[in-house]
């Protein structure tokens, strides 16, 4: 097993299937390690990285930290209120200061699309995108793909419905960019005010009718609805949203009986997803979280660890 021949993980749009295969394969090995009684490998001993989060996050930041600790890396978490971005130290200065402290990677979440690309051009160390604005969230995309592949074997020809606020969703974009390369049949469904432009050109189906997207689906991935979108006039009310686009038991019946039900979290129960569905037999939401640690272990290992197999 050799490492990835790249410095940074910025998105799945520019990642090959060979690279994604390598990450997903390595993540399976990492998942086995997570099941051991002693969950600690010396692989990244002496390596260090920071999680630099300009937006609130619990799951992703902690998932990276735990992944790093399982591999014996030294992890430092830095949370910066996004409100101080404009007036305080520039992103470039913050990151350069961290770099000269000797770190090997910056894991960054940032509210502005392209911020990790900006940083990657200016730092010698690795940059891992933990979500940039409404652009990409590549580790989420990969953990979703890992979850799908574990259950379904492959992606080719699978009908994958992604439901909700597609327009603002970096999770949706990374899923589309990754899954499209493997020939999945991707359907994006949500209210017309929350659908993106241009994805039809990639062979993706875009519809306002959630039933059309979910009909015969192998995978249903439900996106979190940010409730502040209501104030901006993108949807009139939570009950109306739930009525037309919420994933409930009746709608889930439209999908295949063995369809997977996914959600990147955190969930708004009773809004984009019903509790009966979220906690139902088809839900793999918690496995996604486990796989998130495995995928992040794999990426850290492949970027920072280099050569030998675990």
């Amino acid at each position, binding site marked *: 097993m050799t490492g990835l021949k790249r410095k940074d993980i910025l998105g799945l*749009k520019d990642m090959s299937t060979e690279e994604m295969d390598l990450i997903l394969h390595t993540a399976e090995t990492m998942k086995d390690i997570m099941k051991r009684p002693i969950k600690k490998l010396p692989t990244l001993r002496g390596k260090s990285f920071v999680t630099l989060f300009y937006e609130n996050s619990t799951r992703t930041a902690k998932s990276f930290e735990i992944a790093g600790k399982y591999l014996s890396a030294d992890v430092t978490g830095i949370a910066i209120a996004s409100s101080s*971005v*404009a007036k305080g130290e*520039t*992103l*470039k200065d913050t990151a350069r200061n961290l770099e000269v402290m000797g770190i090997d990677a910056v894991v960054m979440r*940032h*509210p*502005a*699309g*392209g*911020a990790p*690309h*900006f940083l990657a*051009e200016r730092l010698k160390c690795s940059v891992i995108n933990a979500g*940039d*604005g*409404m*652009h*990409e969230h590549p580790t989420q995309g990969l953990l979703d793909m890992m979850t799908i592949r574990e259950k379904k074997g492959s992606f080719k020809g699978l009908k994958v419905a992604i439901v909700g606020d597609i*327009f603002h969703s*970096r999770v949706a*974009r990374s899923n589309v960019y990754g899954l499209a390369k493997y020939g999945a049949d991707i359907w994006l469904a949500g209210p017309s005010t929350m659908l*993106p*432009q*241009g*994805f039809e*050109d990639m062979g993706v189906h875009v519809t306002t009718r959630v039933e059309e997207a979910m009909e015969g689906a192998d995978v249903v991935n439900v996106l979190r609805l940010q409730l502040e979108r209501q104030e901006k006039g993108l949807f009139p009310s939570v009950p109306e949203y739930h009525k037309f686009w919420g994933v409930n038991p009746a709608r889930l019946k439209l999908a295949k009986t063995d369809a997977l039900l996914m959600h990147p979290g955190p969930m708004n129960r009773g809004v984009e997803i019903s509790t009966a569905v979220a906690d139902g037999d088809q839900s793999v939401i918690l496995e996604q979280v486990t796989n998130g640690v495995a995928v992040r272990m794999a990426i850290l290992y492949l970027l920072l660890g280099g050569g030998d197999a675990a």
Partner: protein
Amino acid sequence: MTMLIRNGRLVDPASGVDRTADILVENGRIKAIGQGLPEVGAQVIDASGKVVAPGFIDIHVHFRTPGQEYKEDIRSGTAAAVRGGFVGVACMPNTNPVIDNVTVVNYVLQKVAAEALCRVWPTGAITKNSKGEQLAEAGDMKEAGIVAITDDGRPVENPETMRQAMIYAHQFGLLVMDHAQDKQLTGDGAMHFGKVSSYLGLKGIPSVSEELHVARDILLSLETGARVHIQHVSSKTTVDLIRWGKQMGAKVTCEATPHHFTLTDEIVLEMNYSTNTKMNPPVRTEADRQAILAGLADGTIDIIATDHAPHHFDEKEVEYQYAAFGITGLETAVGLTVDRLVKQGVITLEQMIRLMSTRPAELIGVPVPALKEGAAADITILDLDRTWKVEAAEMVSKSKNSPFIGWELTGRPYATIVGGALRMQDMKVVTE
């Protein structure tokens, strides 16, 4: 002091001139045009194989004076202008303080008298402090020397304020330069709203944010009779609206920038979020670009202007969302116009000269540069066949925020003569 421009191809469509001849300049004016004029005692400029045109004028530049001289000042801005082949510019009033009263106008004109390498005509704000509320003293500022009023950079939102501003400007014969943008629709968008912004996850600026104000202000122009000049058109519908407005008899004119006729939103993808692709209005789709080309060809678009918007390196060396809007344009405009429009057959050389010299001067009511005896010696000499590379190190603007750095272009200005003084030769600024 005399100057002899020898053996150039003189092209001045407004004067009906297209022939090879010499121009003798004396005391800042064209003294004689003819064959084999004497060069005794004169500074000789060999224009063989080159085009001698009436001087180019850019009616849309930001020279950041007063208040933001770290980006550009009158000296560096006019250096960029003459290097780019321009003999005169109109500078925008979105300075600090805003050019909204005679005191600030006079300050700018003092700086111009002391530092400028070319002609500079200030414009004034439409409203006090450009807040879109009370009208600024347009009459007083006109007497002091402004050539137009404009809300460039800070659009007048209230249609009633804009209507009264037009009625008021009209009595003084002042042109209203209109930065058409609905701020509600623009929001905090950073690039054109469309497929590419969707892929890149950047917030978008929809075309309708411009079109809504263009439609509004054409209708207000029809109602008030005022002359309205739509700045930096960026969309197909804007071009269509202006074509319609002209047919309806509105006194509406407009400009296109070299970046809007050259680039599309794909450039943000190609340049990997380079903030030198961020400008307002943004470059849009190929269909929009084609409509701008058609508008330039058929005369719907009256002039070419640069919207030269210098910004400090630090203001661009940040995340795309937080970067300042705007790119420099003076030093690349002629090259892009020759390379992208004339060489491609979109417009003729004669059209280029009308778009960059004759019409801009007419719009702002300044003496129209002309190749005829007795006219002021404001002359731009072009080398249409010279291929060159745009180099940041050679730029003389204080700011280098151009997406065209590294581009190879065919055609560039060869010399700039302002009031009989040689200000640029072979793209090197001449200060003495």
